[in-house]
């Protein structure tokens, strides 16, 4: 074992000669970093990386964009949003398209900035497009708390927040090993992932630097060869087993589980979170009485399959032809973290 000890993570990966293994990057940032680092090129053929549903922009359904466009154009509301959502196609148009028609769309760095904008612009109605997993939801909740403290009546959230556990359940079997999203685990802790091993689901929590990613993959491959379901936290400097108690408490205090539609996966019961009744003044759907909108995705788009690892972006007929980052057909092509966008940006040859 003396010699083996010194093998670097990269060597382990490059020299893996075990059984065929499918590893799913749940998180879009992982997908992107893996491409950026050229890691796919290191993999022996029997190791397949699949991109999963872990980009909040990608899993947000068309109808959510339609709701935001409706608010912007019909209710003259100022939309504050993370930049990635602006070009996601809705049924009729994206938010960028609405902006061309005069809608006020502001890109912000954080929900707190949206709340601050509302505070400073009492004459405007401000809605923040609240998307994200367990990592982001606390930031959005904090902005609502602040809005209450500031006694704002012009700030609310249009929510499409989601939680991962139900998705893991839905994706069970799509992959042999999950590369868990480090920042989600930073909030939730690792208990659920450990529990999943009992159901036969293996995984490692990965960080985002080159070394962290290589290590996590190496660990995954070594453990996979051992043949038993496993879980390893390869991101211990950020992820603690218990996660962030404060964030968990905050989310629990302010939100409750609800059914939520995932692009490609459909409605997953109890996979979403929304504000509890006592916070409903900050719920844009209630506040503006948004009509139920049935978004229609472009039928050519296979985002759904891509998000479930059922196909590669390049298997989609319109990939790189009709669908490009300049003219995205589906959400996976818009977000930097989307699998289609990563495949496109880094070339098909990887």
């Amino acid at each position, binding site marked *: 074992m003396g010699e083996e000890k010194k093998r670097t993570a*990269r060597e382990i990966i490059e020299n893996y000669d075990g059984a065929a293994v499918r590893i799913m990057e749940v998180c879009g940032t992982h997908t992107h970093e893996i*491409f*950026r*680092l*050229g*890691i796919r*090129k*290191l993999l022996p053929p029997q190791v397949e990386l699949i991109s999963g549903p872990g980009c909040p922009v990608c899993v947000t359904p068309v109808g959510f964009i339609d709701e935001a466009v409706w608010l912007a154009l019909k209710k003259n509301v100022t939309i504050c949003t993370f*930049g990635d959502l*602006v*070009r996601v196609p809705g049924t009729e148009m994206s938010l960028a398209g609405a902006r061309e028609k005069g809608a006020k769309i*502001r*890109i*912000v*760095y*954080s929900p707190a*900035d949206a709340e601050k904008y509302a505070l400073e612009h009492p004459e405007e109605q401000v809605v923040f497009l609240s998307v994200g997993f367990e990592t982001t939801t606390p930031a959005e909740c904090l902005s609502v708390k602040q809005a209450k403290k500031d006694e704002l009546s012009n700030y609310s959230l249009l929510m499409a927040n989601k939680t991962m556990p139900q998705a893991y359940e839905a994706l069970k079997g799509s992959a042999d090993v999950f590369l868990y999203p480090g920042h989600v685990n930073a909030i939730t802790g690792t208990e659920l992932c450990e529990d999943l091993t009992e159901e036969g689901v293996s995984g490692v929590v990965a960080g985002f630097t*080159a070394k962290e990613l*290589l290590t996590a993959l190496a660990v995954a491959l070594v453990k996979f060869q051992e043949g038993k379901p496993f879980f390893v936290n390869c991101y211990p400097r950020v992820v603690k087993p218990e996660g962030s108690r404060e964030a968990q408490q905050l989310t629990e205090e302010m939100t409750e589980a609800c059914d939520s539609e995932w692009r490609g996966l459909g409605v997953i019961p109890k996979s979403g979170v929304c504000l509890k009744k006592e916070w409903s003044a900050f719920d844009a759907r209630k506040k503006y009485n948004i009509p139920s909108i049935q978004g229609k995705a472009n039928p050519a788009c296979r985002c759904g399959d891509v998000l479930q690892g059922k196909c590669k972006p390049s298997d989609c007929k319109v990939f790189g032809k009709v669908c490009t*980052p*300049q003219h995205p057909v589906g959400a996976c092509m818009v977000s*930097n973290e989307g699998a289609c966008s990563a495949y*496109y*940006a*880094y*070339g098909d*040859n*990887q």
Partner: protein
Amino acid sequence: MSSLKDKTVTMAHGAGGRQTSELIDQIFAAHFANPDLTADDAAVLTPPAGKMAVSTDGFIVSPAFFPGGNIGKLSICGTVNDLACMGAKPLYLTCAFVIEEGFPMEKLEEIVSAMEKTAAEAGVHIVSGDTKVAGKGQVDGVFITTTGMGQIEDGVNVGGTLAQPGDAIIVTGDVGRHGCTILLAREDFGIEANVTSDCAPLWKTVEAVMNTTHDLHVIRDATRGGVGTVLYEIAGQSNVGIRLDTASVPVAPEVKGVCGMLGLEPLYLACEGRMVIMAPKAEAEKIVETLRKCPYSKDAAIIGEVIDDQPGKVVMTTEIGTQALLPQPGGELLPRIC
């Protein structure tokens, strides 16, 4: 000029009558004065000897004032640098202003004064101008279009199609400063960093390089879209591959920090005072040595090479030693940076 205090540009300044003349006399002619400047419909000039390079650009940057410059300085640098990219010595420049009603006269003078200074530094004469005033809300502050004419220096033949495998790729300084500065100046993101625009007139820099060697293939200013976009452009135009050594691309730590926060790639942030130069490797060290002596290119570096592999693509050597494509340039959601 304290008499400008509290004065603003009015619709009458754009009506072509007496107040237009007053504005021209007090602001424009006062700062742009030179023997070639005309008050007539057109300037009468001695044309350049040999071939003439002509370039035009509109400048609509918001905010118009930013750390390291303003729209006036930028409007001179942008066009001077486009001429310099063709190996052309800038001779003449025209400028057309569109100004929003109510724009403070003092700010206008600050802009015009920056133009004067930058034009003088670049050795270019402003020969003709135009002023239009648009109603409040019909233009955002001030827009400037400059057009430059230059004399292409003998013996130099550069162009986007002329990159050759074996060329070294040089960048004249750290990248992304201008784009980063504008992002921060808009204050939408609440980020503070000590970053100033790299905006600078580079003719003297290019001239120094041309005096070092005539063996140059490509010179291009990395403006909208940044160095990354330029590299992809050249790779396409010259049908060559480009290997980029990411670790050697100079990036200011603050720019890196801001990019980290916002998830941006510095290679795709605009520069307004950076050239990408491609020349045979044998010349590269000499060029860099020359550049490091020039005021705006102390951090010049060789960042890669032109290869015959992977034509049209830009390949990076990553921090773990692998090769990966630099993501292709896309339609970024960036503010008005130029």
